[in-house]
């Protein structure tokens, strides 16, 4: 009866069947639930005893009278096969069943006393159990699945167990001085060996997978099995009932061989052994009844002839069947592996084909071995135009050397990486147009060695979005600056006015009869100074107005604050705002874009001044920088109207403004700029008392500095 442990045994015998049968097993297990414990054990005992008894009785029928011996002893095979298949902890059930059946089989036999029958059964159990343990130890539970384990089985079942079983009886017979011990010993040895060799695999495989085979075999297989059985039985009957003729004996005896081969090739060990059983019984039965090629002669000669014939057929057939099973198993393993590999490859291809990125495989030399449809679409080539070509053709001439260099470096270290990070990479379409892209390389092992999986992302849209964003930031900066053009004009007009007046004064002085040259010289000096002053203002403004690339560099936030205070000082004056600072004594170094940081400050300061526009009391804008927990915190506090609790959460949203003419972009842009720098921005406000805007940026220590300066490498630097 199958149980949990048998699944393991079965998996060995029927690798292929098991996979499709898990559900069947479960079903069976469920059905067996009630078959547990004592009931099950009792059933096993009874069933075994009945079978053993029947087989023993069958063997008695096949004895050659008056010799009282037969060609093969089958009941031993039943014990052996059950012990091979059954978990050892249940063997006691077999032992009891065997004792009962062994005793019962000889019940009433005058020649064999009850005690001898009982002892013989015990002895039989011990020898077979020893053999079963030996096989289970040495080849696990796989005695028939390959040639090596079949060899072990043949040694155990064909040599060791028969020897152990028959030797003591023969020895007793020899010691008691009976004649012709040796011929009898040989026959009884062969009888036991043949029974075990033919019967065990037949029963064991049937116990393990017979039911499965009946349930799952296709109709073709069933038909073939039926055809085999019919033809084998037909040929057997014909061969073993044809009267003996010296001329035809060899050919006749060989007639069943093709069908045995058929069974071995197509139905492996189980088929071969059942076929052998059929042949063995047909030949024996007919010989007993004086039919067929083995009929003539004395019974002991008949027995030996039959045994030698069967042995000659059995041994090669067993090894052939095992070899076929071994091959089939290896083949099905190969098939399933190939299948799995094909499925993996198919899955891989599906993934590659369905990714939005263009993906190609490139070898060490840059030769393209595979491209996905996106590659064709992105670059405008047909697949055939790219395969076996070098991948550098996908880049414009000026970048090809760089791409080649990246690939060489990649194969030298073969870690996941992007190429030419920090450089703007462009792709070259078939039509000659260029587009921005990003390239990532991933190592992939293949039969042909290491390949690079090249993933190419079209960056056109991203670039556009970045461009649009940059324009927005710039536009917002211009808008902010335009809010205090008056102050800017004043800032520039002051020195210009001074220059003009000085020049006019000098002209007047020079018209005098004796011009005071010292004074004129002083005037020229003043003119120069004022000119420098005006250009300084313009220089600072130009920095703010320019729309350049974002440039991350170590920068002191204190200097940013001072710079913006300088730019806004006239505006503050105009708005009658007193600006006070409380800056950290140490430089507040961060990694950032100077213009963007100035823009943040500008927005916050103007916002604060704006908030105080309606304030009748003192208008004070306090700027503070401090360092805490690896951050530089900049705060801008005003003494304005403050923001109401309901409006506070929305204050950084786009198009939200508390000012009637406000666009609502300043704070939103400030927030996005702060976040772009890896920082955060927040506000605290008390209505009627003022607000404090704070933003914090990660502090730049010397250690981080080096790392962060590498593009796209640390948090807050990717932009």
């Amino acid at each position, binding site marked *: 009866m199958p149980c949990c442990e048998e699944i393991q045994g079965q998996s060995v015998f029927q690798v292929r069947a098991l996979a499709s049968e898990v559900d069947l097993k479960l079903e069976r297990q469920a059905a067996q639930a009630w078959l547990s414990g004592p009931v099950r054990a009792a059933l096993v005992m009874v069933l075994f005893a009945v079978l053993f008894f029947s087989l023993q009785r069958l063997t008695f029928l096949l004895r050659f009278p008056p010799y009282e011996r037969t060609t093969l002893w089958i009941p031993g095979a039943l014990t052996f096969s059950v012990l091979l298949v059954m978990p050892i902890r249940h063997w006691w059930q077999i032992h009891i069943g065997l004792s009962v059946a062994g005793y019962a089989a000889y019940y009433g036999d005058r020649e064999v006393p009850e005690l001898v029958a009982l002892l013989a059964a015990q002895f039989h159990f011990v020898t077979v159990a020893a053999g079963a343990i030996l096989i289970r130890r040495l080849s696990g539970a796989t005695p028939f699945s390959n040639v090596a384990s079949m060899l072990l089985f043949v040694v155990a079942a064909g040599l060791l167990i028969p020897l152990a079983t028959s030797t003591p009886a023969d020895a007793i017979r020899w010691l008691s001085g009976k004649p012709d011990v040796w011929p009898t010993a040989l026959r009884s040895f062969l009888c036991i060996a043949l029974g075990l060799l033919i019967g065990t695999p037949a029963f064991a495989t049937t116990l393990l997978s017979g039911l499965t085979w009946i349930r799952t075999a296709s109709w073709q297989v069933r038909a073939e099995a039926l055809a085999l059985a019919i033809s084998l039985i037909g040929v057997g009957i014909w061969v073993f009932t044809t009267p003996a003729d010296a001329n035809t004996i060899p050919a006749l005896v060989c007639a069943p061989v093709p069908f045995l081969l058929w069974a071995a090739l197509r139905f492996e060990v189980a088929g071969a052994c059942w076929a052998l059983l059929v042949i063995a019984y047909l030949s024996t039965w007919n010989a007993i009844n004086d039919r067929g090629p083995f009929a003539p002669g004395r019974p002991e000669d008949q027995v030996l002839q039959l045994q030698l014939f069967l042995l000659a057929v059995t041994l090669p057939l067993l090894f052939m069947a095992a070899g076929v099973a071994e091959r089939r198993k290896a083949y099905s393993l190969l098939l399933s592996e190939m299948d799995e590999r094909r499925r993996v490859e198919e899955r891989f291809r599906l993934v590659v084909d369905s990714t939005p990125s263009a993906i190609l495989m490139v070898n060490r030399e840059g030769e393209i071995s595979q491209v996905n449809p996106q590659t064709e679409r992105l670059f405008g080539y047909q697949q055939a135009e790219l395969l076996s070509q070098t991948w550098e053709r996908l880049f414009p001439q000026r970048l090809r050397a760089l791409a080649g260099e990246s690939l060489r470096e990649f194969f030298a270290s073969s870690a996941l990486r992007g190429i030419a990070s920090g450089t703007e990479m462009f792709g070259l379409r078939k039509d000659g147009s260029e587009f921005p892209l990003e390239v990532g390389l991933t190592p992939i092992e293949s039969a042909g060695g290491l390949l690079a999986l090249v993933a190419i992302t079209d960056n056109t849209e991203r670039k556009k979005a970045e461009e649009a964003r940059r324009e927005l930031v710039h536009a917002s900066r211009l808008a902010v600056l335009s809010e205090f053009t008056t102050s800017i004009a004043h800032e520039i007009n002051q020195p210009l006015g001074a220059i003009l007046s000085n020049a006019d004064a000098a002209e007047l002085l020079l018209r005098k009869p004796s011009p005071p040259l010292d004074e004129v010289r002083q005037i020229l000096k003043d003119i120069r100074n004022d000119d420098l002053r005006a250009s300084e203002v313009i220089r600072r403004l130009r920095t703010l107005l320019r729309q350049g690339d974002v440039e991350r560099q170590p920068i002191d936030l204190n200097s940013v604050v001072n710079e913006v205070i300088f730019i806004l000082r006239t505006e503050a*004056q105009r708005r009658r705002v007193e600006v006070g600072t409380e800056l950290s004594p140490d430089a507040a170094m961060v990694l950032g874009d100077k213009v963007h940081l100035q823009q943040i400050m500008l927005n916050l300061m103007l916002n604060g001044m704006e908030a105080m526009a309606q304030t009748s009391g003192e208008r004070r804008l306090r700027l503070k920088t401090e360092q805490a927990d690896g951050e530089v915190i900049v705060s801008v506090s005003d003494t304005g109207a403050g923001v109401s609790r309901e409006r506070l959460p929305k204050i950084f949203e786009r198009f939200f403004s508390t000012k009637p003419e406000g666009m609502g972009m300043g704070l939103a842009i400030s927030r996005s700029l702060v976040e772009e720098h890896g920082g955060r921005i927040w506000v605290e406000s008390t209505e009627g008392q003022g607000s404090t805007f704070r933003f914090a940026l990660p502090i730049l220590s010397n250690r981080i500095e080096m790392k962060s300066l590498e593009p796209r490498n640390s948090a807050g630097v990717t932009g």
Partner: protein
Amino acid sequence: MNSPESLIHLIDDDDSLRKAVARLLQAAGYEVRSYSSAGEFLIADPGAGPGCIVLDVRMPGPSGLELQSALARQGNRLPIIFLTGHGDIPMSVQAIKAGAIDFLTKPVQGESLLAAVENALEVCRQQSGQQQRADFLRGCYQSLSDREREIFRQVVQGRLNKQIAASLGIAERTVKAHRSQVMEKMQVSSLADLVRVAGELEIDGDLP
């Protein structure tokens, strides 16, 4: 053209601009006093002499406009020239409405500044001339007796001697005598002159 006693008060918070404008004005022959804020000017005594103020609209502390209104309240009638930036149109309008003589946009051309200053000084001179005549006429008027003032009033109202005599209950001859006395004291020689003087003195028929 430059009267030596006229003094120009230059008020601007920007040191270099103030220095340059002062230089220009001095080169043009004016006497210049510079102040860096409105407060500084108010503390200093501007003096009673003729002159004008060149004033920056935008300054820390009190602005130019605030100084303008403070001066108006004090009765200081020195003409004011404002210096303004480009975007200060509203301020300029306010300044002109409040009586500023001129406003100049920075940077200021020397010629326009000098012309504006000259114009301001002229205004100042006219103002001081008008002031003197008003003081003189007021003095003459003070010397009239009550009866003479009454007759003066009625004469400029255009009433005849006979009518005046009837209304005051005096002889026509007496009216004539008073009338010639009024002409003499007011230093006019004709009735037309007398009417003009009355106008300057803002005397109409309802004079006290």
